[in-house]
């Protein structure tokens, strides 16, 4: 094994890791603000992919161009889900909350299969296609653009949370809901906002990978398990943590798969989950 191959593997790991980060950021945001685990998060990603697909198939809009639309659409989906389902179970026992989002996951999958058929689809001619070769290292332009987009979106989210009034209010709600309410922050509004942004992040991730990943109703299940590992490693509720953890998980998965054997790559990632839970249950940057 040469250094070239190792660098190539690291680049591939980094690229997919950034996508994991973007998926997990939305998940961790929702959890951070209201302590609800969203099992339907992978389905938001799936909806984002289908939004891109239909924008392309019906109106010939490229997935990259359609990204703002995808984000808006998924933001709306997130808010609607909050208003119709989540708002009613805020004070319900944890088990009910789990079943509610779990049920939502099955519902969304079922609807996607019903309306759009269980077929695998691809977007055949995206604006971004082809390969980039940097010396011995090769990577696909779609993957590169997706990773770049993931960095951009996560960065924008970080800026929003730390540099704007609304974002600070959201952070405040995440840190201490009651104190935030006492300061005049509308908790309901913040919750709806968290769901909107969380879903939009997943949707954007979906739109970004739609240029190279097959689109099918079950696609969310491939990503959600990894997203949970990322959230746990990064620390529940920490956006920065999820970003770093996404990269780490991507690198470990690809590198571990390459060095130890691809048949163990899922096992390697899930062992990481176990180790984190045993050694440092609050994750890298989570609240103690």
């Amino acid at each position, binding site marked *: 094994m040469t250094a070239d191959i190792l660098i190539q593997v690291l680049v*591939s790991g980094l690229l997919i890791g950034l996508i994991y980060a973007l998926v997990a950021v939305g998940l961790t945001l929702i959890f951070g603000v209201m302590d609800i685990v969203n099992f339907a998060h992978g389905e938001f990603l799936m909806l984002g992919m289908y939004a891109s697909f239909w924008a392309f198939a019906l109106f010939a809009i490229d997935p990259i161009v359609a990204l703002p639309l995808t984000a808006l659409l998924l933001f709306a989906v997130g808010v609607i889900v909050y208003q119709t389902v989540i708002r009613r179970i805020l004070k319900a026992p944890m088990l009910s909350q789990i079943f509610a989002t779990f049920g939502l996951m099955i519902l969304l999958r079922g609807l996607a299969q019903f309306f759009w058929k269980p077929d695998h689809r691809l977007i055949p001619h995206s604006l971004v296609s082809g390969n980039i070769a940097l010396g011995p290292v090769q*990577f696909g332009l779609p993957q590169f653009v997706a990773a770049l987009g993931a960095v951009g979106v996560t960065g924008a989210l970080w800026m929003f949370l730390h540099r704007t009034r609304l974002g600070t209010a959201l952070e405040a709600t995440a840190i201490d809901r009651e104190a935030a309410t006492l300061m005049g922050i509308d908790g309901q509004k913040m919750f709806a906002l968290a769901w909107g942004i969380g879903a939009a992040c997943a949707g954007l991730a979906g739109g970004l990978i739609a240029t190279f990943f097959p689109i099918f109703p079950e696609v969310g299940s491939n990503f959600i398990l990894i997203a949970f590992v990322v959230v746990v490693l990064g620390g529940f509720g920490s956006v920065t943590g999820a970003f770093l953890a996404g990269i780490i998980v991507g690198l470990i998965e690809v590198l571990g798969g390459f060095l130890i054997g*691809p048949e163990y790559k899922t096992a390697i990632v899930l062992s990481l989950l176990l180790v984190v839970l045993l050694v440092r249950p609050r994750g890298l940057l989570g609240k103690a």
Partner: protein
Amino acid sequence: MRFAAAITEPTRTPDFQANAKGKLPTRRQTIKRMLAAAALLTTTALTGIGFGAAPAQAEDEIRIGVIYPLTGAAASTGVELKAAAELAAAIINKEIPAPPGLVAGIGLPHLHGAKIKLIFGDHQGNPQVGATEAERLITSEKVVALTGAYFSNVTATASQVAERYGVPFLNGESSSASLTQRKFKWFFRTTPHDDLFVGNFFTFLHDMEKKTGDKLRTVALFNENTLWGNETTKLQVKLAEEQGFTISEKILYPAKTTQMTSEVQRIKAAAPAVIMQSSYLGDAILSMKTYKELGFSPKMLLANDAGFNDSEFLKTMGKDGEFVISREVWALDQAERNPLIKQVNDLMHQRSGVNFNGNSARAFTGIAVLADALDRAGSTKPDAIREALQKTDIPASGLIMPWKGVKFDANGQNELGQGIIVQVQGGQYVTVWPFDVATKPVVYPMPAWDGR
């Protein structure tokens, strides 16, 4: 039918009036309507009492349980298999005219023209669900025989249930060799199994070496990690050793994955002449995307059917799917040798808008072979059906498969099945091997990605 008619007539009118006026039907009307619907559904010669209770079973309706992945990751394949099975049933029931000579076209004369009814079960790609569905179909749906289940691991569990209950299980499309090595009494399989297919690959490579003068002795095995992929790997390793091939890399990967870079990177590093790959649809697409991303093309990509032969594969991959070589049990271009293939395929296309592929053609054939046995059995008793299956002897001319016929050995395996090898050329699967039945020459080596 008489009961159904008696119930429907009086209820219909008031219901429609109520609806026309925009009122919701009363509870009584709803109950009546539901009863009428239940009676209608059970249809045909009710033997008397108790309509609307347990589904009454008519004697001239032969229920066959069909287990496929109708939801879940393989649902798109499942839906095609279902369409093919339904086409076979329609032909057997003489709802549509059959092309002359087709074995299914005979119908069920020895059962006095009885109709078969397919009862579908959905295994979602899960062996446990498959077993539960088999049990449900046998105990509560009272099916006389089972067929399915595409996934070898599901076929394994579902047929175990059938074996326990003593119900014939005819499998048309699972190719794991071990299924017919279990010495089951009630299990029959029409399709050739992986041993034969995998053996074909090596014979094909020998033939290609002779033809091109190139050495094709380094092989990477790239198989998914369920039962099918594992068994294929075992056999490939054994055959490679026996026939003087070197395995330069061996990878068993999880099919449900978000990236395949580690896999492809390892294969690329090993630089084999040939990749032998067994994948389902999603991972077949993802792996092709990854080959392209990393700019890797071996001299030859030999796919083990399944995902690479799904009709979605070429639709989604477009040009990037070109030059893949796959083993097949079936190809549309074989119609030049057997006109039945074209005729039955036209029927399929009219009904479901898709052409047959190796999977759906085998599902069709499975139902046809089962119906043939049912007819010769002249009875719906399990023992009679089993005995008839054992005596099955269908000539090649009655099938839409490139086989020599259907005849089961002591383990329930069809001895007369055989495979072909196809290559994607110009958006079509064309037969390239065995050379004597080939319709096009092999494109070799596979062109590099930037040279296409």
